[in-house]
């Protein structure tokens, strides 16, 4: 194995009863990468993260992290991992500072020793260091949890859905923190159900029903879409959607905010054709423009293919 590889997973399968939580999952993550696992609830993200962090054993297959096997070498592995589980799991009745000191202590270090690494994040909540963790706002809890996961200077940081249920502003702030952290050279893996967060990662794996549908850079995934895509709007979006779906030339039509993303069969119609047929159906204020697909467009395209 190359010394640039941080995490290598081979043919991981995990069953819960007869339900396949993970189905032959294989991937490789490079040292220092910010890598995203993107998919809805039930895709298998949390199960995968629990296996990577040695909290669950894989059914079949194996994973190494920094050369350590997650089953055989789990005691050594845990020392080099920082893990932020999906659910807030700090001690609610300890203060901010006590939590940080506790997690540092578990790893035989002190907040002072590794303060540089968490400074940017922790300094934002330091004014509230005597407040109980349970009394913090959602955004502050998140910052504390990240500080606690980092305080022992892990080589790999594992963040399970850190932005789920978090508002748009706090999500952006969180990704800005990760972008800064990435510069320190730490390998970071993140899971998220928000497709738009993919563009923040170096590479992503799109997951659905326990499988990885594709692994690539965000740009690489967008290029794989391979179809012309149009953004169409008109005054009555709901009727427009129904009408576009009736189009013989339409492959798919999905609403995206005030627009409908329409993918057409190869060379079927021109922009002018499209506008004139929509006009003849009585639509007003029609707008049609060619667009680049988003990760969400790609995700839906792949979901349809796998059906």
């Amino acid at each position: 194995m190359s010394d640039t590889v941080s995490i290598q997973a081979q043919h991981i399968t995990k069953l819960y009863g007869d339900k396949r939580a993970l189905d032959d999952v294989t991937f490789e993550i490079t040292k220092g990468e910010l890598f995203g696992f993107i998919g809805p609830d039930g895709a298998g993200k949390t199960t995968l993260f629990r296996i990577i962090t040695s909290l669950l054993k894989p059914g079949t297959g194996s994973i190494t992290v920094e050369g350590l096997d997650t089953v055989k070498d789990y005691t050594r592995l845990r020392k080099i991992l920082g893990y932020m589980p999906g659910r807030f799991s700090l001690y609610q009745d300890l203060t901010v500072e006590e939590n940080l000191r506790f997690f540092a202590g578990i790893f035989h270090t002190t907040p002072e020793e590794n303060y540089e690494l968490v400074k940017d994040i922790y300094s934002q909540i330091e004014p509230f260091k005597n407040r109980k963790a349970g009394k913090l706002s959602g955004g502050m809890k998140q910052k504390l949890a990240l500080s606690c996961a980092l305080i022992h200077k892990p080589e790999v940081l594992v963040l399970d859905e850190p932005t789920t249920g978090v508002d748009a502003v706090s999500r952006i702030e969180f990704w800005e923190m990760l972008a800064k952290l990435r510069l320190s050279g730490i390998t970071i893996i993140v899971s998220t159900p928000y497709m738009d967060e993919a563009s923040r990662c170096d590479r992503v794996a799109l997951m659905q029903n326990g499988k990885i549908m594709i692994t690539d850079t965000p740009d690489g995934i967008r290029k794989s879409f391979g179809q012309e895509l149009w953004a169409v709007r008109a005054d009555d979006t709901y009727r427009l959607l129904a009408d576009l779906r009736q189009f013989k030339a339409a492959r798919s039509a999905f609403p995206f905010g005030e627009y409908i993303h329409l993918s057409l069969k190869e060379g079927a119609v021109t922009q002018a054709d499209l506008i004139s047929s929509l006009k003849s159906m009585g639509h007003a204020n029609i707008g049609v423009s060619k667009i680049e697909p988003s990760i969400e467009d790609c995700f839906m395209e792949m979901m349809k293919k796998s059906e």
Partner: protein
Amino acid sequence: MPIIEVENLVKKFGSFIANDHLTFSVDEGEIFGFLGANGAGKTTAMKILCGLSSPTSGKVNVAGFDVYRQSEMIKKRIGYMSQRFSLFDDLSVWENFQFFGGIYGLPAAQIRQRTTELLGRLGLESEKNQLLGSLPLGWKQKLAFSVAIIHKPSIVFLDEPTGGVDPITRRQFWEIIYETASQGITVFVTTHYMDEAEYCQRVSIMADGKIVALDTPANLKAKYNTASIEEVFLKIARN
């Protein structure tokens, strides 16, 4: 005609002002988006509108009833669904409908008729004897929504109904919302997906306990000179 009327609603917890003089109204059959950053005061306001909490001051009327004196009547006329509070995993689909229909006090014949009608609309008739826990999340969310309107409420409150759902199911969910609104049921919805805010007829954005913006998505984008509601939201919340 407004189905929700709120005038100078104030809710304090000790010295903390969670809702600071909210004034707005929602029309019958409207899809109304209720946005705001975490901690802006959305949940507090929603609890009051659902009759679960009393305002400190102000006038609040929901479905023709006063929240101070007639909160029990309000509860009968509304439906509620959130990602957190859903159906019972260890009951079958059918049993869940019977249970919640019963809670809303519907007669047995009407529960049966509504259950058949709603399952038919989702195309899930053949799943009616399956345990809810065995179904995919997307189906559960759609079923939870159907249960929330089993009693044909005046208003249905949806608290982040599509959280964590795959992008195709998320869009199907909004088609069900449109269909429901077209039948005259008012939809009051919160979401963290900003593209969904654009599916609403009007949206309000809360910050620090106040409503700082309320208009149609198109007007808000024009006013803040942005291409999307997400940018409007960021402009407001970052100030």
